[in-house]
């Protein structure tokens, strides 16, 4: 694609993203779903740094997400610290957790890395459930209500949340795109394509992977705070969930186009609404039917093009150009 066309498309997409909520009911269901689309796109983008650029299939990103959600919320509940400030220690804790988990999993490949990270997420869920004094345990934790406003990160209707989620997505996407074109991005690609060759021409593979993991984990934790402020209530089984967080963010990035800058956005725009639709359509039918339909749809996409929707789009574009 020509750069001019690319920038025009980006500007158009941004204009649409800014305009859309004004055409929707501010407290409505549609705006709420769009907030989740933006949030999950940002989460999948943060995952994409490890899962896409470093090609390490993490299934434990809920760990960092939950750490961020609990971090800022506990600081708010216990000490009245604004979530905007609580965001920072939460992100630091997410980064440190990512660093700690990357040390032992560093040399694991493929399935083993996926399993080890999966287990880490589960450990965090158990810790949060057990350590009730700090987290409120299995009964969950609520964000205390205060007078709405930007300073306290609470609003009456959905529109401000929408724009904050959009801002978060833009920031995470800018970081992702920046990494891709930086030394770190080149090094991650080198490690992904040939680790021994990368090491032999001077890439410190250990350090490079740790930096990627820390950035990814910290961003994921930051988004945990956004989720907490958006939902007002959550428990360990939600924020540390394997299917609802860890697997879902990986799935969004993979279905959209793993390792690409817009893949996670495309993936979230596709998956989140369809999942909602499936839930609504089949909720009065047999239990689990919506998940079944949703799962089948994922299988169809991945069978059609393992590189995801973006690649299907590219193929259609080329095909259209030819006829």
């Amino acid at each position, binding site marked *: 694609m020509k750069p001019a066309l690319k920038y025009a498309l980006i500007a158009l997409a941004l204009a649409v993203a800014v305009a859309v909520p004004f055409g929707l009911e501010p407290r409505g269901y549609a705006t709420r779903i769009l907030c989740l689309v933006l949030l999950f796109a940002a989460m999948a983008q943060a995952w994409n740094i490890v899962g896409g650029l470093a090609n390490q299939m993490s299934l434990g990103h809920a760990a960092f997400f939950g750490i961020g959600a609990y971090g800022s919320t506990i600081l708010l509940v216990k000490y009245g610290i604004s979530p905007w400030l609580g965001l920072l220690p939460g992100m630091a804790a997410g980064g440190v957790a990512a660093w700690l988990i990357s040390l032992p999993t560093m040399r694991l490949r493929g399935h083993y890395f996926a399993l080890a990270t999966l287990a880490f997420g589960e450990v965090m869920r158990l810790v949060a459930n057990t350590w009730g004094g700090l987290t409120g345990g299995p009964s969950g934790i609520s964000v205390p209500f205060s007078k709405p406003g930007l300073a306290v990160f609470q609003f009456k209707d959905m529109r401000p949340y929408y724009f904050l989620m959009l801002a978060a997505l833009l920031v995470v996407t800018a970081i992702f795109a920046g990494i891709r074109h930086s*030394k770190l991005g080149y090094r991650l*690609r080198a490690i992904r*394509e*040939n680790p*021994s060759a990368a090491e032999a021409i*001077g*890439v410190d593979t250990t350090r490079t992977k740790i930096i990627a993991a820390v950035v990814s984990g910290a961003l994921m934790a930051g988004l945990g705070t956004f989720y907490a402020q958006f939902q007002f209530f959550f428990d360990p089984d939600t924020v540390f969930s394997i299917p609802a967080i860890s697997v879902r963010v990986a799935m969004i990035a993979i279905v959209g186009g793993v390792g690409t800058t817009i893949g996670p956005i495309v993936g979230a725009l596709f998956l989140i609404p369809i999942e909602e639709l499936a839930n609504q359509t089949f909720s009065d039918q047999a239990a689990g039917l919506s998940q079944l339909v949703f799962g089948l749809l994922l299988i169809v996409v991945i069978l059609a093009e393992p590189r995801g929707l973006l690649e299907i789009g590219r193929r259609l574009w080329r095909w259209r150009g030819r006829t």
Partner: protein
Amino acid sequence: MTALLQISNISKRFGGLQALNDVNVSIARGEILGLIGPNGAGKTTLFSTLVGLLKPSTGSIRLEGREIAGMKPHRIASAGMVKTFQNVALFLDSSVLDNVLTGGLLRHSVSEARALARHCLAQVGLSDIADKRAGDLSFPERARVEVARALCTEPRILLLDEAMAALNHAEMDEFLALLRRLRDGGLTLVIVEHHMKAIMSICDRLLVLNFGRQIAIGTPAEIARDPAVIEAYLGRSAA
């Protein structure tokens, strides 16, 4: 004159197999050393051990007087020694330019590395395919890209493992001319090559390995008339 690279008593064992057995050699700055020996002699193993991809079982490796045995490959690369891979190890999904550029990141920013990468590609005569995907290249082209990538790390000593394999005559002459230019520019080279005429014409000295053991070292003329070498290597390939 102090040696640039001092290899002392290097041995490497793979389980029951003694792949390298007490190798000793000292390589001078600006020298072109040829490393020859029959298949399985341990040439690639020696290279991998020198750059840290394998740890030596015993022995010492000093680069400019500094002990590097057991260091990680990226530290050895930044100390100034890199190798190319016999089976060619490129980043196949990346462009030729990006492959070479990644070598330059060892000492430079992305934009500096890009300029240096173009220069290195010009040196090996591949400027016109800079934007091709590495995976789409022919084998000889890949080998030259790998040489350019190694050069882009700005090494003091470069180990080439059969980089000339599959080159035709004209290409080989060009490649030998490149190696001479690099040497004249101050680079030290160790080359593994099965093509005898090429290696005899370019090397100052040859080191001969057989079953992991160093059986001879000397000028090409000395090696050509060494009875142990004729027996172990030239004799066998002539038969």
